[in-house]
């Protein structure tokens, strides 16, 4: 049994990388391995918005990550700097920046790049999906 972390930088709306990351995550969990953390960076953070609303007959990446993380008890972490720039905001950051509204999905947390470094050092393998 190995511990994985994933770094996901792929745009969820215009590339395949998030689909690949989810398939990889499901497969490794099915094999009995564990996930410590999925860290979202660059355009990857766009998946953390609860307002993402694909057509109803299509895969909802945000909800799929959320369900997988809750079922298998791992963390979904979006990098704060790149998330704010991309309009992925929680209530705390909205208040601090005088923005009306927030859109983070409750299964995701926003944190610093240190969480990526920690995931690298505390996992057996880090795999990137960009």
């Amino acid at each position, binding site marked *: 049994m190995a511990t994985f972390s994933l770094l996901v930088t792929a745009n969820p709306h*215009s590339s*395949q990388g998030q689909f*690949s990351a989810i*398939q990889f995550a499901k497969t490794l969990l099915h094999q009995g391995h564990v996930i410590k953390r999925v860290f979202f960076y660059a355009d990857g953070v766009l998946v953390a918005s609860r307002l993402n609303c694909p057509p109803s*007959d*299509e895969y909802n990446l945000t909800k*799929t990550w959320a369900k997988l993380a809750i079922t298998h008890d791992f963390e979904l972490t979006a990098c704060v700097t790149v998330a704010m720039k991309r309009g992925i905001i929680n209530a705390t950051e909205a208040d601090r920046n005088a923005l009306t509204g927030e859109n983070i999905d409750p299964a995701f947390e926003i944190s610093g790049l240190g969480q990526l470094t920690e995931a690298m050092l505390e996992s057996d393998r880090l795999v990137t999906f960009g």
Partner: protein
Amino acid sequence: MSKSLAIIFNKAPYGNQSGRELLDIALMAAAFDMEISALFIGDGVYQLLTNQQPDILHMKNHSSTYKALELYGIETVLVSSEDLEQRRLSESRLMPVSSLSNHKQINKTIAESDFVFML
């Protein structure tokens, strides 16, 4: 006189949303009675392969929409023979929706169209 629009597909499907989002433009413009050409060059020729199954990875299969182009009045659907050959693809592996063409004819279509879109 109605305006003409050439839409150029130059990327393989599913790694990006280019094919799907260009198709939506093609169908909308056809509804406005524009004269549409759909042109497949480079890795865009892979858009036309038969037996695509992106659903096994939970992605939406947009390839059936290519079969509907004619229903929408889009009759100029050209695929580059040079780009097929360079990719060792025979025409028999493509859906029967396009006409085998060449760079010269495709360039002529681009040159004569009022608008040209890529994505």
